[in-house]
């Protein structure tokens, strides 16, 4: 069972498999899946095997092993790794090798995880389909004509393909939960500030958060236990004790828990029947194990997507201005006809024109416009005000209920290319997910069934800030009485 971290840990401690054998199996599976799924931008067999050998040696010597000892883990290519390229799936950073590890990567190494490689994504985490990658699209293991979701498409697909049990994704507007939903795996977006952003290449700093993807809640809880916690190098990191995520999973009795179902948002146009039905079915399951279900509404729901698509591009336009062709990353080699602007401005313009893909350019332009003099009040400042209202909605809701239940995506995975030329349709994929990012609350995507054509459908639970353990507790209870998360693509 290469798809359960807990099982991998058991195999090793029982002496039934070594870390090297497990890493070898994962690497072989990746190699076999890469031509069809293309979940990885970089795989380092040698480094992974030597990390695994170090774990075996440590075990043989009776040393203390970390909580993820010998577990193969894939990392989204937006997190800095000292020994591997970090590209953000962009031509701009095609050859970038950071001189340092991201905080999360440090923690994974300290936990003795075996990092096998970096996963494909929408360029700079901008997209909902992993089609905006300079290194080719990633395909959905359930149906390779379809998208895996985005932007952590590679991170979800490599788990769904059974190549690694756990991966690290990032979620700015739903980028962990949405691909997890479309790939039939479990993905958690933690509270903003719960996991260090140090070494996470910024898309929209006030929204970005790092989180785990795996098949089951207990695996996800295990990784969350490893990556969560304070990091003094990230000023927005929360200096608070972390919960014992793995210890809350034993009880499957939800009596006393009140869950609000986001009924109104489900009944929107464009929401697939399979998604609506899966949510209603999940509500029945929660009720059957003791939860009290009530209907609830987040009044400013309609403003989530527009607010997000002002704030995120504004921050992105600023965060991406460092890619100017001068310091690192792609620099144009074409300075012909630079007389008009001068060589410096020409370097900036051409390096950026060549280095960035269309979606990134689109968002830089939107953000630059929305922050510019005369428009900032109309767009950016207005969006910040609405963001406060959205947070207020969450506060009001969580004064009545413990968790919120709703869909993750409006539809199951759609065919590759279907929305690639229609940015607005693509942006609506984030309909249900961006609220958690705007409010900073944690949320989890749980597999909740298959649609008529056999594609995964999921539900989302959201909790008040820092209540990841509540999500994991309810999610584990759900998975203890359902088998949606046990289905595998054929």
């Amino acid at each position, binding site marked *: 069972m290469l798809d359960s971290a807990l099982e991998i840990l058991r195999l090793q401690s029982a002496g039934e498999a070594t870390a090297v054998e497990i890493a070898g199996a994962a690497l072989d599976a990746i190699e076999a899946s890469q031509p069809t799924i293309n979940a990885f931008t970089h795989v380092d067999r040698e480094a992974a095997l030597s990390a695994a050998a170090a774990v075996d040696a440590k075990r043989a010597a009776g040393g203390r092993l970390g909580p993820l000892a010998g577990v193969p883990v894939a990392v989204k290519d937006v997190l800095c790794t000292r020994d591997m390229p*970090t590209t953000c799936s962009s031509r701009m950073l095609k050859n970038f090798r950071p001189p340092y590890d991201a905080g999360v990567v440090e923690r994974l190494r300290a936990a003795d995880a075996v990092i096998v490689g970096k996963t494909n994504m929408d360029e700079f985490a901008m997209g909902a389909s992993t089609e905006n990658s300079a290194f080719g699209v990633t395909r959905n293991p359930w149906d390779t004509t379809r998208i895996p979701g985005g932007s952590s498409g590679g991170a979800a697909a490599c788990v769904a393909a059974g190549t690694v049990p756990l991966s690290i994704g990032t979620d700015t507007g739903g980028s962990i939960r949405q691909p997890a939903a479309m790939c039939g795996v479990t993905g958690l977006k933690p509270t903003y500030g719960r996991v260090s952003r140090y070494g996470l290449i910024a898309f929209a700093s006030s929204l970005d958060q790092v989180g785990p993807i795996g098949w089951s809640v207990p695996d996800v809880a295990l990784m969350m236990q490893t990556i969560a916690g304070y990091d003094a190098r990230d000023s927005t990191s929360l200096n608070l004790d972390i919960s014992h995520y793995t210890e809350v999973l034993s009880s499957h009795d939800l009596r006393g828990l009140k869950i609000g179902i986001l009924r109104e948002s489900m009944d929107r146009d464009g929401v697939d029947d399979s998604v609506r039905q899966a949510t209603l079915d999940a509500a029945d399951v929660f009720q059957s194990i003791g939860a009290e279900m009530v209907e609830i509404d987040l009044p400013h729901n309609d403003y989530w997507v527009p607010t997000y698509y002002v704030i995120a591009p504004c921050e992105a336009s*600023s965060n991406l*201005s460092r890619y100017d062709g001068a310091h690192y990353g792609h620099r144009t080699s074409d300075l012909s006809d630079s007389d008009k602007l001068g060589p410096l401005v020409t370097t900036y313009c051409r390096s950026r024109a060549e280095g960035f893909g269309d979606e990134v350019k689109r968002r830089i332009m939107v953000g630059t416009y929305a922050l510019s003099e005369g428009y900032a009040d109309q767009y*950016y400042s207005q969006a910040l005000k609405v963001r406060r209202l959205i947070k207020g909605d969450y506060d009001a809701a969580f004064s009545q209920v413990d968790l919120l239940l709703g869909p993750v995506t409006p539809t199951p995975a759609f065919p590759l290319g279907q929305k690639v030329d229609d940015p607005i349709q693509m942006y609506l994929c984030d309909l249900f997910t961006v609220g958690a990012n705007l409010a900073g609350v944690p949320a989890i995507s749980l597999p909740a069934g298959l649609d008529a054509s056999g594609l995964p459908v999921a539900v989302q639970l959201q909790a008040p800030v820092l209540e990841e353990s509540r999500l994991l507790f309810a999610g584990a209870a759900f998975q203890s009485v359902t088998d949606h998360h046990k289905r595998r693509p054929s």
Partner: protein
Amino acid sequence: MTLSNGYPAQTVIGLEVHVQLKTETKLFCGCSTTFGAPPNTQVCPVCLGLPGALPVMNDAAIELSIRAGLAIDCSIPPMTKWDRKQYFYPDLPKGYQISQFDLPICADGFIEIPDPADPDSTRHIGILRAHLEEDAGKSMHDEAAGRSDTRIDLNRCGTPLLEIVSQPDMRSSAEAKAYLQELKLRMTHLGISDCEMQEGSLRVDANVNLHIEVDGKKIATPIVEVKNMNSFRAVERAIEHEVDRQYDLWEETGKTIDDESKTTRGWDDNAGITFLQREKEESADYRYFPDPDLLPIRLPIERVEAARANLGELPGAIRIRLAQQYGIKPYDADVIVNQGPDLIAYFESAATGSGDGKRTSSWIQQDVMRTLKDRDIGIGEFPVDADSLGKLLEKVASGELDNARARDVFAHMIETGQSVEAAITALGIESVDNSELETLCQELLDANPQVAEDFKAGKQQAVGSLIGQAKKKNPNANPQQVRETLIKLLQG
């Protein structure tokens, strides 16, 4: 001031002063701020703006900014925040500068300066704000041998700067200079900045224009911002040049502030002229927005008040106190205060020991400061401590040593580091008692009867010729005492 066509005109000057804060490490990372290191050796992912790196606030810079704000009578708001100022520049690795836009750390202060036009009054120069920001790097253009390489040194990236923006309250280059001197004095006195213009730790931009009264209506000439001045003298000269240039231009073209927006000019120190750098056809749009990587900073009133309590006496107050307490001239007090806190402390303790403030002040300004300058050292490294100087001058004040002998002793103390007593002994200086002195003087009078006669004839100065002889016979004889003893003997 009157233009050649008869209209009265007033010069209007506002200064933007960048002061580099004296922190050990940079504003948002742990890199050293030491000046002069080899290029790109004091850098890390944060100050290089590497992808994924994040800024972390250096609290020492906040503390120094609060002190600076209090020193220029600013208010310190309870909350301040960080904003990003976006522009593309090769020395700016992130593509934006972390600065402060609408909530600066210091607001609304002032400085009183002596009025250069009237020594008995002062001028009140308003301060609009002071905000904290990170410095950019440095480009070095190498155009040797037909190449046009630009090398970038990012050591300076992220160094904390406090930008102090004055109101346009200055009316002459002399006032601008006085303002800068007073500002520099306060910043160095409080240990906020070294204010070394050569090292770039104090940088000045001057906004200059003229207000001309034409038929009872005030007309303003277009504002010019002069950048890159590396001495106070340059600031003065640049302003004077700019005033002349703007007069001439207005007489020639009649262009006012409504016809032309602000332009940026550089200063050529050799040629003594300003030159056009940038015409701002439209004002730059920096697209400021709050930096999402840094939380707003709360500055509770308790913290500000604690800083105020720790501020100590400011130079202006010290100047007045020294003059009163030690009976020295305001000019001398000014000279001492301008040397900084260590020399002030040295003066105070030496003056207390000597019991003679005037003498101490004059010795410090002449003998001590000359030695410091010759040896290029600070008062902390001066071999004669304040107590010893006090003791030495006390002996001069009591007549135990004359000035010339005291200088010998002082020179010996500087050379050897000996105490006053040891130096006196080493130099063989002994005090001469009265009977010994009387014997010596009587011998001289006996040998020189003419002197006694001249004296009796009313020529008191005749004894002067014997003082040198007395000194020759006994180098320890105090000339003043010799004179007094001779007169006493002659008057019988």
